[in-house]
Each structure stands twice: as C-alpha cells, then as structure tokens.
C-alpha cells in the first residue's frame, strides 16, 4: 500500500485524467450546499466542504431505478414478459466521500447482500465502485460518527483515504483497487516523512476536539416490547409533520416501493425510494393499516434504526452518525435525544 502526495491542482488534474477509466463522482458546490455529481467537462470539484446535503447513497442505489422492461404489444411473442433493464456497471469512483457515508454502505450491505438473497443491482453497483474517502477536518456540530463505531478518519470500507493538508492532499491506498487507482493517476509524489507526520497530527487533533458522546450502549439489552411500549413516543413524534426528509437524506434508509409505468405499449417496472413516514407505506388492500398514526410511524423509524437492526445483526445501530436528519429536520427532531431516551429507559 502506498501514500502519495498531490498538490491540489495535481489532484484535480489527476481526476480529470482518470475520467476516461472511471465514472468519477465528486462533490460540487451548488448554492449553499454541496452535492455529488459526475465529473464531466465544466464540472469543478470542491473539496472544501463539511458534507453533502444529500448522501451519496443514490450513486449505488438510485432514487428511482428501472428493474425490468417489457412490451404490451399484443402481436409481440414476448409481450407481457419482463426482461432485465440494461445497466451500466462500468468502473466508477466516488471521490471525497466522508467516512460516515462509507460506514452507511456497510450498514445497508447487510440488507441488500445477505446469505439468502442478493439484490443484483445494489451488489453490482457497489462492487463496481471505488470509494475514495476524505477525512473530516471540520466535523459538523450535528455529527456523531464516533458514537456509532466510526470516526472522522475511519478507514474501514474505503479503498483510499485522503487527508487534506491545506496546500495538498495526501492519498493513502488501503486496497488493491485503491492502489490501482492511485497508480493510474500517474501524478503526485511519494509522501515524505513530514507529510505523513502532518496527516497523523491532523487526525489526532481533530479526534481530540470531537466529542459528540451519544450513548447507545444499553440498546441491545433492552426488551423490544418495553421500548415499543415506551411512554415517550407520542411526545417524540408530536412536532413531526411526516415530511420524510429524514428518510430521504439518510444514507442508511433503504426502503423502496415497486411500481409499473407504461407509455403507449412499452412499460418499465421501477423501484423508488419509499419512506416509513408515509401512511401508504403499510396500507393493505383490505383497507387495514397497522400504522395509521403518526407516532407509530415515527416509532417505527427509530425502532428500526436503534433496536430492530441492533437485534437482527448484533453489530451496532443502523445509523452512521452523519447528522443529516438532525440538521435538516424542519421541526428539530433529534435522533441523538431519542437514542438517549431509548438507552435510558
């Protein structure tokens, strides 16, 4: 494994040079926010950001994705028979992804790629992607990755970790895929000892100053029915307007709906992100709905992330601590406070 030092200009040029070999996604600034976009002509990456408003989950798991296509043309012998929709699985790279969002991919991987069923689209998109992380020099006030098993410079799941040292980037390959990516840049220089030391010092000083301290240590030992029947759910949900922003921005929310769409005689079966915040999510054909009330849906969201997932996989919560739901909730519902309520019940 190697560590390469790039001036910021070299790094930008190297990425441009690699865009023939990879579809590269980079953070760009749009208005007051950052978002991931494919690196194309005229696109200028901006690595001076805290985190993108919308997580990069859609690069692996699009908000709307064609599953199958079919014809309804009665004369066609293949009419009404579903065929796989063609997809692009050429190599791609997400450059500048934060460690929390990489942690989120590992969390949702358990859902999409399990011993019984593999979701072919998620798995193939994920396997064709290189993750080039960027350490967090300035974690947000709403971040709490260290409370859920991550950290501002957490390397697990990454192919390359990049340190922003002010005037240059230090890129450390962590996997063969990552080393191959760095080699292909044909730029930069091997990192010297002072640069390596600077990266080490940066990591240490950020980690020292970052102390979100959300406690979730008792969740696994709580009885599920005690938490489900806890007295605080109505109050937690009181201000919620069921807008679904939390589930939409959450990098670990994976629920989807399946719908058919037809234009003339050609149709697609499509899956779309869905949200447990919406009453339609569980409405049955008979008219029965197990979650008609707002507090039941809010409870489902937190119970799924902080209890059901914990019990099912025995390896932490379904939350990467990115803090997006805290930051963008229009009524200030805060998962850190709910976790504390549940943890202390």
């Amino acid at each position, binding site marked *: 494994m190697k560590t390469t030092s790039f001036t910021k200009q070299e790094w930008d040029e190297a990425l441009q040079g690699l865009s023939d070999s990879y579809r590269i996604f980079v953070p760009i600034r749009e208005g007051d926010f950052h978002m991931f976009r494919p690196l194309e002509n005229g696109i200028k990456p901006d690595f001076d950001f805290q985190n993108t408003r919308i997580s990069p989950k859609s690069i692996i798991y699009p908000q709307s994705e064609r599953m199958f296509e079919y014809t*309804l043309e009665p004369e066609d012998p293949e009419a*009404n*028979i*579903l065929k796989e929709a063609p997809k692009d699985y050429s190599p791609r790279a997400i450059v500048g992804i934060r460690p929390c969002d990489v942690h989120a991919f590992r969390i949702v991987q358990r859902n999409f790629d399990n011993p019984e069923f593999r979701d*072919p689209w998620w798995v193939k998109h994920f396997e064709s992607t290189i993750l080039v992380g960027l350490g967090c020099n300035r974690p947000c006030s709403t971040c709490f990755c260290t409370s859920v098993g991550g950290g501002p410079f957490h390397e697990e799941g990454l192919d390359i970790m990049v340190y922003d040292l002010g005037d240059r980037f230090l890129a450390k390959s962590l996997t063969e895929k990552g080393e191959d990516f760095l080699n292909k840049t044909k730029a930069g220089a091997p990192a010297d000892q002072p640069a390596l030391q600077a990266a080490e010092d940066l990591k240490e000083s950020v980690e020292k100053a970052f102390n979100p301290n959300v406690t979730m240590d008792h969740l696994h030992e709580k009885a599920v029915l005690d938490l489900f029947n806890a007295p605080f759910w109505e109050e937690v949900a009181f201000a919620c307007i069921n807008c679904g922003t939390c589930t939409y921005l959450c990098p670990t929310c994976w629920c989807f*709906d399946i*719908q058919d769409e037809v234009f003339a005689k050609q149709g697609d079966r499509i899956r779309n992100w869905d949200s447990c915040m919406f009453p339609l999510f*569980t409405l*049955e*054909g008979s008219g029965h709905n197990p979650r008609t009330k707002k507090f039941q849906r809010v409870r489902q969201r937190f119970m799924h992330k902080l209890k059901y997932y914990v019990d099912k996989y025995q390896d932490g919560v379904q939350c990467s601590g990115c803090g997006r739901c805290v930051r963008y909730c229009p009524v200030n519902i805060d998962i850190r406070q709910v976790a504390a309520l549940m943890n202390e019940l």
Partner: protein
Amino acid sequence: MENPYLPYPVRIDEVITETEDKNLKTFKFVFINPGDEEKFSYRPGQFAELSIAGKGEIPIGIASSPTEKGFVKFTVNKVGLVSTYLHNMRPGNVMGIRGPLGNWYPWEEMEGKNVVIVGGGFAFTTLRSSIVYMLHPENRPKFKDIKVVYGARTPGMLLYKDELKEWEQRDDIEMHITVDGTNDPDWKYNVGYVPPITEQKITSAENAIAIVCGPPIVIKMMQPVLAKLNFPPERIILSLEKRMKCGIGICGRCNLGDQYVCKDGPVFSMAQLKELPPE
C-alpha cells in the same frame, strides 16, 4: 447472479369463479418455460408474487399443493388495482409468478401429530394446499387425525365447494363446515361462527397442532377457544398478511419488530408473535 425480482412467465390455464359474490376467483397457471415448474418448488403455507406487466405485483398464498403437478393455483380476492385487473384476465393470457416466497407450516414438527385446521372466510387457500398435501397417499400416514373447521358467511361464499364435499365423504379427515347463516333449507352442515363451532367440535389439544387462518376477528376470537382447549402458544400456528413489495425481506415495509412477514413469515407461532410488537 440470480435475480430474485424476476418473475417466471406463466400462462393462465383456467379461471374458476369460487363465490356467489364473484369476488373470489381461482387462477390455474402453467409455466411457459420448461424447467421453471421445478425451480418453483414449494411447500404448503408459502406464497408468491403474482406479476402483471403494466400493473404490478400482489402477494398471494399458494392454493395448490406440491403433490399436484403441471400447474399452480391461486385464489384471489378482488380488492385493488392488480387483483381487479387479474379478475378480468382470461385463459391464454400471459403474466408472471415470482416465488415461492416465505416460510411454510411446520411440516416436520407436525409429523406424528394430530392436525387441527381452522379457517375463516377466504383465508382458506394455503389451508386447501395443506389438506390436499396431507391427504396424498404418500403423506397421509405421516399425520394422525386431521380435523378441519372451515366457515364462511353463507354457503355461496365457501371456497372449493366440490372438494369440500369430497373430503366430507372421506373417513381419513373430519370436516366441520359452517356458515354464519343461511336460508337454504337443504343446508346439512353447521350454522354458527367458526370459534364456537371449533369449541364444540374440537375436544382435545393432545398431541395436536392447530393452524389458524382468517380475518383478524377470527384470529382474535380463536385465542380463548384454543387456550381453553389447552393448546400451548407454541402449537398454535398462524399465517399473517401485510402490505408487501419485494417478498424477500429487502424493501423494508412488512416488518413486525425485527422480523419480515414476507421472509421470516408469513407463518408464525402464537409464541413467536407474543415476543414481537403487536403491529
């Protein structure tokens, strides 16, 4: 990589209107591609997604038995977009079936035991599958007494009427058919709701497993009856319904606590359900 979302193409072979209100029809499907029938190897209690291009999918219990070869059968209530469209389809039409999905009744555990089957309304489909399966000459010796209580609102609302008559004649299965009410003077079976009829006709829980399917009210009213008969919660087996999409525990909507009804169910024992949030 196998695609678990891709349905097997099937052709509708036969459509039977089951009930007097014409809201329940049984569809017999044959697989279009040779080999698919073998891949669709199922056990009674499982379900499948019926897939109609341009409309969508619906999760429906498998009504045929694995001992019946050459076709699969589903009985579908007309309630929404897909089921209404399906009700207007005809023999020869092409659609899809995705599955088999979910778990099944505990067949290994039921061997050597008495089996009590309780069904109310149109939730008798996977119970039909189970009865046909158990009555097959190869399987019948594996089970002791088989007793069935099955009720519907009226005689015309009973499913599988010809088979009910046939089973009624047999001496290796005890049938207790009932209706909520009827003005048919020739009605020779029971009149009354399923729970009290069960209380009258089933006398013992000894060495027995009960499988109960029905609308929520029947499930609820059956609990005190089965408790009185001394069925422990581990030996009361239920099949649940939820809104479903993927059918393989991935899309996230049909959970009961950390269990997905589509993948970890739809069959649960009462003992399991007591540990899960009552949603």
